[in-house]
């Protein structure tokens, strides 16, 4: 068990292209850290630098306060689960899990190895498959064998490289909760790479969002969602994604394609020098006005719904709009960064399932201006980010994490006591 500290890590390939550029992260002992970003953002490279499969061009990597830049992978005491599992096909499940134990010669007797492997296999429900070869296992079972191989050796930290991307949707959900439970139970520092934001949001204590090798924001999922630092993070986190609307600044009013929103206080000052800003509205912030419960000061407008999708528990409505040419280029680039296709010139609204909006209807809608994010179109910076609130969220989630670890440990102790009583 140890903390992992990344100090200004840089990875440059032969052609001088920095795949990872000046990334600093502080991963606490027992923390579940997610590295997330669109493809090619350097998240896997960063993970491979931590485990030692990729050289570090510059910067320092510390595991438990010890600089490990020049250590070989085997001397870093980390366990890794690969995307394609990398099981040894010529060995049985038992031998696969025992492999790391057998490598550290003389440390474990054959009985100890047997006990440890059976322990891990029991935890992962692999007992009846121990004599089989990986080729005969299902995807989920292979995944569990790979995890067994990681947990059997009491490593300082677990590293996961998109471990669930090869599983089907149902199994992915199951394994996701399984990984979360295991991590809490073992209390091991974990670094987990994914491009799936559901995994990022549900698993992570903190999530580090990367774009083109540069760390954008590292915060708890809640903070990322509520207080993103820039346009990229705001667009990347959330599904369906945040709507970005061009907004002309006219005095103390923001003219959105559908509505005029008055701005006050600090925000008015910040946007004063700009001609156009980008307004960010999450789909669920916009509500159907016909259903009532409209708060004071809400911005109301009506728009023609082009298409609706009713999903039972919620309903999406698509509203096309004309984009402003002055921010067109900026939004197009953002779309490319997010691995998207084509320009998003429609607004997605996540309506209540009760709403009876029909396609082609001119629908009255409203949103609370306080929920709206405003971004500088030139720098992408979020002008509405509230540092005080963000700090509060960060503190809360850190406390929650510690409480969860404590609970898991207490449960462990209780179970051990129960077990000893029972025997």
């Amino acid at each position, binding site marked *: 068990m140890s903390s992992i500290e990344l100090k200004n890590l840089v990875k440059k390939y032969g052609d001088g292209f920095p795949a990872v550029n000046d990334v600093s992260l502080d991963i606490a002992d027992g923390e579940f850290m997610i590295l997330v970003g669109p493809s090619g953002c350097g998240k896997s490279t960063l993970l491979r630098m931590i485990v030692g499969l990729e050289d570090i061009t510059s910067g320092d990597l510390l595991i438990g306060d010890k600089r490990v830049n020049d250590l070989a*992978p085997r001397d870093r005491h*980390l366990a890794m689960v690969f*995307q394609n*599992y990398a099981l*040894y096909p*010529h060995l049985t499940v038992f031998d696969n899990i025992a492999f790391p134990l057998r490598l550290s010669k003389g440390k474990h007797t054959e009985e100890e190895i047997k006990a440890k492997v059976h322990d891990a296999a029991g935890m992962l429900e692999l007992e009846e498959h121990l004599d089989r070869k990986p*080729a005969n296992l299902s995807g989920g079972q292979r995944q569990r064998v790979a995890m067994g191989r990681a947990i059997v050796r009491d490593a300082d930290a677990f590293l996961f490289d998109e471990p669930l991307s090869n599983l089907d949707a149902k199994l992915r959900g199951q394994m996701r909760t399984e990984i979360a439970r295991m991590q809490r139970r073992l209390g091991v520092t974990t670094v987990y790479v994914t491009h799936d934001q559901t995994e990022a949001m549900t698993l992570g204590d903190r999530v580090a969002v990367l774009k083109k090798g540069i760390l954008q924001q590292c915060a708890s999922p809640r903070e990322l969602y509520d207080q993103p630092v820039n346009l990229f993070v705001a667009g990347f986190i959330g599904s369906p994604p945040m709507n970005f609307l061009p907004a002309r600044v006219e005095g103390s009013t923001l003219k959105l394609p559908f509505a005029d929103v008055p701005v006050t206080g600090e925000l008015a000052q910040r946007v004063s020098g700009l001609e156009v800003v980008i307004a960010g509205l999450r789909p669920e912030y916009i509500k159907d006005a016909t259903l009532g419960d409209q708060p004071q000061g809400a911005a109301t407008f009506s728009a023609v719904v082009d298409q609706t999708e009713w999903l039972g528990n919620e309903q999406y409505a698509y509203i096309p709009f004309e984009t402003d040419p002055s921010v067109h280029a900026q939004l197009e680039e953002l779309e490319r960064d997010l691995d998207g296709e084509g320009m998003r010139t429609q607004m997605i609204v996540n309506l209540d399932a009760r709403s009876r909006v029909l396609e082609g209807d001119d629908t009255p809608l409203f949103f609370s201006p306080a929920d709206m994010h405003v971004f500088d179109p030139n720098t992408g910076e979020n002008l509405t980010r509230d540092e005080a609130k963000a700090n509060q969220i960060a503190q809360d989630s850190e406390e929650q994490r510690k409480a969860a670890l404590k609970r898991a440990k207490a449960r462990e102790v209780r179970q051990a006591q129960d077990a000893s009583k029972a025997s």
Partner: protein
Amino acid sequence: MDDNLSTKVKSWLGVAAIPIILWTCVPLLFILAESLKSTTALGDPTQNTFGNFWPKDISWANYQLIFTGGAKDLFLPALWHSVVVCLASTVISVVLAMFCAYAISRLDFPGKKVILTTALAVSFFPVIAMVTPIFNLWRQIGLFDTIPGLIIPYLALTLPLSIWILSAFFQQIPWEMEQAAQVDGATHWQAFVKVVAPLAAPGVFTTAIIAFFTAWNDFVFSLNLTAQNARTVPAALAFFTGASQFTQPTGAICAAAVVVTIPVVILVLVFQKRIVAGLTSGAVKG
């Protein structure tokens, strides 16, 4: 998807295969038949059935001749030399090729392409063109008619082929496998021995068999670079003589040919099961 061929197509393919099987088997059967004929039967078609093909009375005289009779002193040492030379050159070539192919498939170093193209160029080179210079050199440095003197040229023949086959095999093994082993605490060497080598086993066996056959079947080098102390069977056959200078030693040569074919057949039968592609299936998502 596993069976796209209908039964009809399959049976037609089966029928079409028969002439090919006959085409390849008849010469071999003919050698066997010849080796079982007595000296008189060789020259007298009436003593044979199927139109001079199979002898009516099977005679083991030819085998007696090469194992215990007059040709014993020529054949038995040659057999021994063949075994020693071929095994040694196979082992050396496979081991060297394994290291070389591993480096080629895993490392990025200058001159990688040069090694591969040189290896290919060498194997295109006509063997007969190498014999004279080697003969001269060997005579001067004392390697003529020695076992190492034969092993070294055989390595030149087998190494290029082995390197090409093995590097293709190593490239098929997912690199993650090795990286996983390293993360699990293995050194480079341990990862190679415990993970890469077992996975490459089918490739290693294929290579070994091909290397062995190349050496086993060679005639040109053995004929020109040896006299008595290292002569292998294919060359020794050329020195068989009949009972008098007017009798051809056909029977004895055929018997010896049958004897040297046996290890080849055994090797193929034994290792056939080991040459299984797809051993790596199941390691990664497939």
